[in-house]
């Protein structure tokens, strides 16, 4: 499972970075979305005790939790925050993109068409 997830993270990252380096703003926003997935999964995979199936970090009522028995909660808490912030970032970027497009008349990341 680890190898598949690692390759998946790599593929998401590579696609995201490729798009990040493209000249059109829409490509960049899509690239950022992909890169966010990759980074979120990467952080998520940092869990102490490795990947776990069927052991969510939810306790039985009334007990003291056993850290070895359930998935590491910290990366999950971090990623939860990252997902919400990622949404805010996408929204902001989209609006900046649209405003730039309206103002400059182009969707090139530099705000003008390159000289050819």
């Amino acid at each position, binding site marked *: *499972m680890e190898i598949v997830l690692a390759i998946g993270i790599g593929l998401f990252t590579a696609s995201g970075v490729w798009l990040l380096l*493209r000249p059109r703003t829409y490509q960049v926003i*899509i690239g950022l979305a992909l890169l966010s997935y990759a980074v979120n999964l990467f952080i998520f995979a940092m869990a102490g005790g490795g990947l776990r199936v069927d052991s969510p970090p939810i306790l039985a009522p009334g007990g*003291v*939790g056993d*850290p070895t028995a359930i998935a590491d909660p910290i990366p999950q808490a971090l990623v939860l925050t990252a997902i919400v912030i990622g949404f805010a970032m*996408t929204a*902001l970027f989209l609006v900046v993109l649209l405003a730039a*497009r309206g103002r400059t008349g182009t969707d090139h990341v530099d705000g003008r068409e390159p000289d050819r």
Partner: protein
Amino acid sequence: MPHDTLLLVALLLPFLGSLAAGFLPTHARNAAAVLAGSVAVAGMGITIWLYAMVAEGTPVQFWLSWLPMLGLDFTLRLDGLAWLFAMMIFGIGALVVLYARYYMSREDPVPRFFSFLLAFMGSMIGIVLSGNLIQMVFFWELTSLFSFLLIGYWHHSASARDGARMALTVTGTGGLCLLVGVLLVGRIVGSYDIDQVLESRDLIVQSDLYVPALVLILLGAFTKSAQFPFHFWLPHAMAAPTPVSAYLHSATMVKAGIFLLMRLWPVMSGTDAWFYMVVPAGLVTLLLGAFIAIFQQDLKGLLAYSTISHLGLITLLLGLGSPLAAVAAIFHTLNHAIFKASLFMAAGIIDHETGTRDLRKLSGLYRYMPFTATLAMVAAAAMAGVPLLNGFISKEMFFAEAVADHTGSLLDDSLPYWATLAGVFSVTYSLRFILGVFFGPPPIDLPHRPHEPAHWMRFPIELLVLICLLIGIVPGLTVGPVLATAVKGLLDATPPYYSLALWHGFNLPLMMSLIAMAGGVVLYLGLRRYLESGIEGPPILRDFKGQRIFEKVLATLSWQWARAGENALGTRRLQPQMRIVISLAVVAALAPFLANGAVGTGNMPGTPLPPAFALLWLIGGACALGAAYQAKYHRFAALVLVGGAGLVTCITFVWLSAPDLAVTQLLVEIVTTVLLLLGLRWLPKRIEEVYPTRPPLKVLLRRYVDITIACALGGVMAFLAYCLMTRPLTESVSRFFVERAYSEGGGTNIINVILVDFRGFDTMGEIVVLCLAALTVFALLRRFRPAPESIRTPEQQRIQNAYDEASPDRSPGDTVADYMLIPRLIMHWLFPVIAVMAVYLFMRGHDLPGGGFAAGITLSIAFVVQYMASGARWVEDHLRVLPLRWMGLGLLTSCATGVGSWWFGYPFLTSHFQYVELPLIGKMPAASALLFDLGVFALVVGATVLILIALAHQSLRSSRAAQVNEGGD
């Protein structure tokens, strides 16, 4: 009030006064002057009040813990030396305020002037009272800043701006050197506390860092005190209003450097390094300043160079390293402040009453202003060192020290000759000042007809000249005790024997004085013809201008090199910058692995791979690659594919025991997709393939480079992820959270407990970010101007409207209104269902997957679905959606929950929980964290809805715009 608090008051008063003066009306000249004057007099009163304590020899201290873990405290410390300087700062400050009241014109914004002046006064007091070196540097930099503002006060004049900028550049750079030097001293001593530093002479002098620290500190002191070769900024600072010059260049600014040298004198002087750095600098400054002063045609220029020369004299005395020389230095600092302040004020009066400061135009003013002339003559005589005046006594002490043996080197042995020569020069320029301005034929062609100034304008000079005379005639009675206290503050050991008597018998220093006076008169007579020719500046030397070098250096550094650097390294294009950033990220991520050789995977047993998971990621990878490929030409396809990738991520979360993440990811995915769909409408029509056949080589190459970078980073990430997943991680704080989530947080969903309880403050920051992002989106869209080609109604709507218009039984808009009627009805009905779902997610959040975030986004989806079904107009006719209220309420609720814990005496955001029995529902956890989560919930609803609605509304606006356009056609 206890003594130590009085110190704090003395420091704060000028700053408070400055603030108050800043709020006065622009032309409230009298009010500002009264305010500034009272502050200065009050400060002086406090200083005098504290004299009794200081004179006993124990410094008055104020102490406030600031950063104890770094050994930094805010301390104020008033010893004899600081007392003398504080007296000069407040005393001369008060006189300058009085003088400025009459000097400044009614048209100038005078309160601003006094505001700057008071702030500068406070900074100076800060320097002399600091009991901590870092704190002293802080105030030191403040004086640089406020002197910049003061010198540039008449900012409409180019020379004032240039002079201010030059002073700031030079003294500010020196200040940075000083900071580093002080840090070095702190490192040697292990403390920045001045008391401790003063006790560590051996440690400092024997340290390897002594010389670097000394050089840096001297750079700070020399730039501030205008020592050669940094002296050039001072004459340019003469573009300031004269009260500023009288203050900055007699008692304050330039004396800050002198004060620093004195403060550190006990621990840093007396070595060869000190002697050979400080003495030559002082000597060259002394001679050069005095020599150039002779040839100035500007009255203030003459005084400026004479100031430079006197500062050189004091520096030289401090450089000698003997206690007696240090006594002379303190004494001369005081004397110079007194006579130079009065001379600057006199020059200002002459300028004010005649309209010029040019020595070529001024002449014979004695007959118009005899009183001012007499005062100026006495002050100038003090400057020249004429007996019965204060300048004479300290100059005698200087001559005596020049004669005395210090190191026995050639430099030391030749000092008496240089000292006498400097004496000659000072007599010459003093003569020139007096004879040139007040005697000779009546002036012709003056802008104003000269007359005596207002009495109160002259009063400060009268007082200062009186002090000159008193110190000069009865030094022991007047200045004796004060000087003794200051010397006690400066020297750690018992003060050396010195006599302030006027007459020491017929000795060598007296001989030197007589030679200097006679020589000065002869030199003046000899140079008369040259000076009258009206050439500005001394022969030969006038071609060497520090200013020109300074400007050249600045131009090279900040213009030529900066441009060259920008051309060579910079670009305004985003893509090359991104390439660099990402490549650096690859290198930075790999470097530690390669360097430590810790490359390789771990040996933890892997989790078995179900085929479905592999299949899932096959789809995920395909989606990502597809999105990367399609994003340019098929935006919608790319969006769908990204959604696919997001879904795969979401399922992975479910699979790998992260239900909370999965829920949030799914919901955010929905909202993001809607958002991007709304955005698609405003993007330009896709450009057909730019290169019809085959792209040029350059473009291909660029793409290959990008692919390489992308693959490299992807590879690095995959490799790192795999390595990390196969290694056991060291113990983290997770154990803490897992063990205490229930017992201390009262919830079984650890993620939620972390978010709203343990790390509640982080979540607070996060929702603020979300809030700001939403508001920014809202603000940006208010001024949104879509591109012209996007304004038209979309094609589908046009076709529908055309059909309506063509049919006689339909009115335009009917088709749109009937469109997807049944799904729309279902969507309306869904609103309460989704809302209940949101409440459910929220309520169970503390114990089971869910929580404020997820619930907030769910509810916002309920709203958005209504917009999608019926359009903005219909929704807003039927439903009042006030996203800004939701956001404000949410933020307030969260904050209030956090602040509420203060009420019970706990730190911010401490949560409390207990279970309550509710009828029907049963046992229910009621943690205060739930209230916090409620705030999060409301804010997320508000922010998400605000973003989406703001974007959706653009269609309304633009269709209005299109209607207007079409109507106009």
